[in-house]
């Protein structure tokens, strides 16, 4: 029994195990990947139909449309983050594991972003092309989404952790998440719009990186505390 300390896996290996497990679950339950992605594609492709197929009009709204669709699909996907684990009891195991909960929650967040955020980022240039986004802003769009989507996931995870114990959550998730997601939306669209107008977008991207850095260090901590409250 004295070998407990010797045989304990490192926090890094617990992190990797949790990441792998969550990715495996997502690939087996394909809904988690397909749903937010399809939602994103559908929302964006409705705009040319509803507003106007005219290239100049579309180019004007392209950045905003893509960013709004990203935000909505991120909120749609958040719900699956902790729910299954809460219902089957795995969350209790996570809370009782001898590792800092920060890293395990971070692993779950990263897995969730790879599954729900990354496909959206990868598909975005194609949809931007459909919306006639001006040619020189594609890189900015990709960068802003690469920085913005993990931020949205991290912020959303706090709200999910807080509400995972509630039976029916409905809109409460959106009500908690939206105010904190709006800055990401604003800077994301501003970055894309200014590079479409031929202006430098570095400042906006730097601000978004700062928000990402802040949420990367604080959100898992907050989510962990919220999970402890939800489970007790």
């Amino acid at each position, binding site marked *: 029994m004295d070998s407990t*300390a010797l045989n304990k*896996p490192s926090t890094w290996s617990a992190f990797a195990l*949790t990441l792998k497990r969550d990715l*495996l679950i997502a690939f087996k339950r394909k809904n988690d990947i397909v749903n937010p992605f399809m939602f994103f594609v559908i929302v964006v492709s409705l705009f040319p139909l509803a507003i106007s197929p005219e290239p100049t009009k579309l180019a004007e709204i392209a950045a905003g449309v893509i960013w709004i669709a990203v935000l909505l699909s991120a909120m749609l996907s958040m719900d699956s983050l902790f729910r299954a684990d809460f219902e*089957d009891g795995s969350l*209790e195991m996570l809370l009782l594991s001898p590792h800092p909960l920060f890293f395990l929650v971070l692993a779950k967040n990263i897995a969730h972003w790879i599954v729900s955020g990354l496909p959206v980022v990868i598909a975005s240039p194609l949809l931007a092309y459909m919306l006639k986004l001006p040619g020189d802003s594609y890189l900015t769009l990709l960068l802003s989404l690469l920085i913005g989507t993990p931020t949205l996931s991290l912020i959303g995870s706090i709200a999910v952790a807080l509400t995972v114990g509630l039976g029916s959550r409905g809109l409460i998730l959106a009500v908690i998440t939206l105010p904190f997601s709006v800055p990401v939306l604003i800077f994301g669209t501003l970055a894309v719009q200014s590079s479409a107008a031929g202006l430098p977008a570095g400042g906006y991207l730097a601000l978004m990186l700062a928000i990402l850095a802040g949420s990367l260090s604080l959100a898992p901590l907050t989510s962990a505390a919220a999970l402890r409250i939800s489970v007790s």
Partner: protein
Amino acid sequence: MTDTSFQHTPDNSPLFEVCNLRCERDERLLFSALSFAINPGSALQIAGSNGSGKTTLLRIICGLNDGFEGQIRWRGFDRSEQSEAFAADLLYLGHRVGVNKVLSPLENLRWSAGLQVKVSEAELMKALSDVGLRGFEESPCYTLSAGQQQRVSLARLRLSPATLWVLDEPFTTLDVDAVARLEQTLADHAEKGGAVIVTTHHKLELPKLQRLTLG
């Protein structure tokens, strides 16, 4: 954790001790002035009618629920000061078994056991066949019966290095054979110097068994 001083209990204090515990839930008093201690090599059965607070007590013991008053000591230390070492030495099986339905028993166990101890694939396979899941290692858990899913979580008992086992109704969905095997596992654990806290309506036959009735 190179310093293993926490392994040596000061003044021969018990492995796990609860003093003057009081818990109120939804304005109903579940228990008050509850005290007990448990030593290595012994077992504690918590009995009581439905709704008497057995699960709440177990969750308080593990640290999942902190809506209580009183002291909880582990190896003589306040539990909250040693929470990481305590977590490494604790195994909790709740009544929600912690088995993900889309994963196979092997994948479930790889994660749930792997959080607490380094295990090889061979050890995982052996643990699963020990609980009677040979041949089901790779099938998704939603194809398994409730009893089989329970067995997936019981396989953790065979791998865990924890001294203190806290089990919430581990016998409910098991068949006669599996019940006998689990009783044997608990007896073996106590013999090796472990301690078990268990809630069950089942009549347990273990050496050095204490009983505590709530409500």
